[in-house]
């Protein structure tokens, strides 16, 4: 009986709303736009934020990245001869100190040095970066060996002239044949190819070189064969640089220790470097910042959504007040026929909730369609959390109740005698 009564109240609400189709539709539109905006904005905002967080996570949440950067050229050095060596960046000393200070907190640590070289394979020439590193590099970077093997500790100890090819190098230089066992030459040295990596496919690398384009050699071999001086020739001028290490990557044992470790490293480097010739990247820190900015962004969205829903709610309240006045006599009749105040409140509240609910459902559909279109046509990253539509719908229902309470209360508290006399 209760349920039947409830269904009847709802069906009555629909009937009354259908008496004024245009008015009901326009009122619903207010909520529809609000909800659609919330759903679409949340989906696009969440998508962008997730893409950014994904990128940061790929750097590894327990990693700390330290890179050599060329310090800004000052007046004095620019006046000097173009032959002067430019010495900067991270040193072997830095790496040793970090290792010694952090000790047990380091799970893995690899150093990277890069030498741009012309590589000759049989009769081909190839411009590539020779990347000197340690065996741990493979794990730290999350790389996989496609064929052959990776660099070993023995290679490093014996200064072996071996190399492993990055994913794209192998297919470029040896499109047909198996590269393992082939020999390539760089700076007059011969390197035997012992392995080939799977291509990573995404943009990831060191100091502007993609990992897939590098040729990997043992760190000790790199130091011995190539020395510390890198000569770059560009536009007729020669630039001579001396950089011991281009990058140090530290993988800390737990996320909790990342902040402490990065502080220690910062202090260490500040003491030994007179100029800012290095940069530190802490993905966990970036992740925190990304989350923080996402939170702020969501607050902004929430405010916009709130404003639009308040506007929609005011629209509903306005219409319901007009409806109540218009139906004063009906209220009087119903009261005379035994309706309690409560029944009148229910009746009008149901109408506002139906209006707002319809706006909520349609707004949800429009919002999802819009997000989908944004993904399709603008290639936007879109992500709809399951709770967002539910929330949008719940909020629209709440707005309906909020906007409906006062008009319904006014309807219920009319004097039945006055209401019946109303023309």
């Amino acid at each position, binding site marked *: 009986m209760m349920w039947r009564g409830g269904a009847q109240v709802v069906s009555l609400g629909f009937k009354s709303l259908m008496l004024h189709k245009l008015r009901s539709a326009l009122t619903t539109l207010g909520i529809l736009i609000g909800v659609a905006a919330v759903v679409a904005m949340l989906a696009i905002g969440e998508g962008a934020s997730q893409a950014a967080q994904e990128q940061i996570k790929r750097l590894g949440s327990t990693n700390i990245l330290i890179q050599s950067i060329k310090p800004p050229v000052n007046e004095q050095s620019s006046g000097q001869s173009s032959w002067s060596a430019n010495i900067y960046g991270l040193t072997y000393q830095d790496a040793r100190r970090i290792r010694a200070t952090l000790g047990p907190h380091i799970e893995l640590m690899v150093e990277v040095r890069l030498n741009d070289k012309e590589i000759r394979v049989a009769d081909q020439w190839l411009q590539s970066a020779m990347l000197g590193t340690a065996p741990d590099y493979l794990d730290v970077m999350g790389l996989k060996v496609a064929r052959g093997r990776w660099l070993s500790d023995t290679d490093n100890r014996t200064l072996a002239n071996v190399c492993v090819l990055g994913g794209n190098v192998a297919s470029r230089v040896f499109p047909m044949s198996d590269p393992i066992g082939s020999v390539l030459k760089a700076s007059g040295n011969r390197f035997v190819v012992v392995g080939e990596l799977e291509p990573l496919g995404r943009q990831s690398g060191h100091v502007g070189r993609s990992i897939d384009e590098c040729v990997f050699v043992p760190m000790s071999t790199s130091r011995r064969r190539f020395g510390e001086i890198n000569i770059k020739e560009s536009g007729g001028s020669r630039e001579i640089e001396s950089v011991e290490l281009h990058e140090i990557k530290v993988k800390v044992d737990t996320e909790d220790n990342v902040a402490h470790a990065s502080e220690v490293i910062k202090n260490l480097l500040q003491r030994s470097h007179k100029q800012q010739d290095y940069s530190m990247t802490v993905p966990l820190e970036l992740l925190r910042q990304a989350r923080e900015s996402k939170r702020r962004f969501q607050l902004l969205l929430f405010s916009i959504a709130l404003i639009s829903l308040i506007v929609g709610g005011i629209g509903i309240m306005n219409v319901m007040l007009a409806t109540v006045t218009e139906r004063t006599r009906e209220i009087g*009749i119903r009261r005379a026929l035994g309706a309690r105040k409560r029944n009148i409140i229910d009746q009008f509240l149901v109408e506002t909730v139906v209006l707002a609910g319809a706006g909520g459902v349609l707004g949800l559909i429009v919002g999802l369609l819009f997000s989908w279109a944004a993904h399709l046509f603008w290639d936007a990253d879109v992500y709809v959390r399951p709770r967002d539509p539910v929330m949008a719908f719940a909020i629209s229902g709440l707005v309906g109740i909020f906007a409906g309470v006062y008009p319904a209360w006014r309807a219920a508290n009319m004097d039945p005698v006055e209401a*019946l006399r109303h023309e």
Partner: protein
Amino acid sequence: MTQPPEPAPCVAELSDVRRHYQMGTEVVRALDGIDLSIRRGEYLAIMGRSGSGKSTLLNILGLLDRPTSGEYSLEGKPVSTLSDKQLSEVRGRNIGFIFQSFNLIPQLTVLENLEVPLFYQNAIGPESRRKAEELAVRVGLSGRLKHRPTELSGGQQQRVAIARALMNDPLYLLADEATGNLDSNTEAEILTLLDELHAEGITIIMVTHNPAMGDRAERVVWLADGRIHHIEEHAR
């Protein structure tokens, strides 16, 4: 010597009912001490000039308004002290209203209009539907249950209203100028219908200033200045 017939038991009783309104600094005594018993099954007319207190008395009899002082009781139970909610429930169960302007709800069909009083008693179901159909036949509206009020003539609308007033088996029908908006032919039809209902034992209280209608009642209460001026008894 014959004994006077045993008077029928009272359905409603007013004792020294007063209703005063504050209009600015002036107190308007719309009702100023009404004593009246309404007998079961009687046909009562309340008449008087406008301003005599007819409407105020109707509102009190309809439980839409409360006396300022005095007591009003239905079947011996005082109702002046009931809460608004209780008053609504008593009104819904015991009183059948017939209004001058019919007062049907336009967005509902005839059937739905008939069911409104039972809706507020949570008594909608196959039974209420059967009752609505029976009453529609009784007032001469069979086959119109799916129509909307606007598709009916004035006389038909008032028949719907009478059927609606009977849905809750009321203690009395309370008719307020029930034929005021109808032409004389239709008025006669409606009055005949009320006569028939009365003959079936329904208590009718009619508020009117139309002497032709007063003539149909068994008893006419004449109001003047908020008091009962005199009571006419008509032999039937």
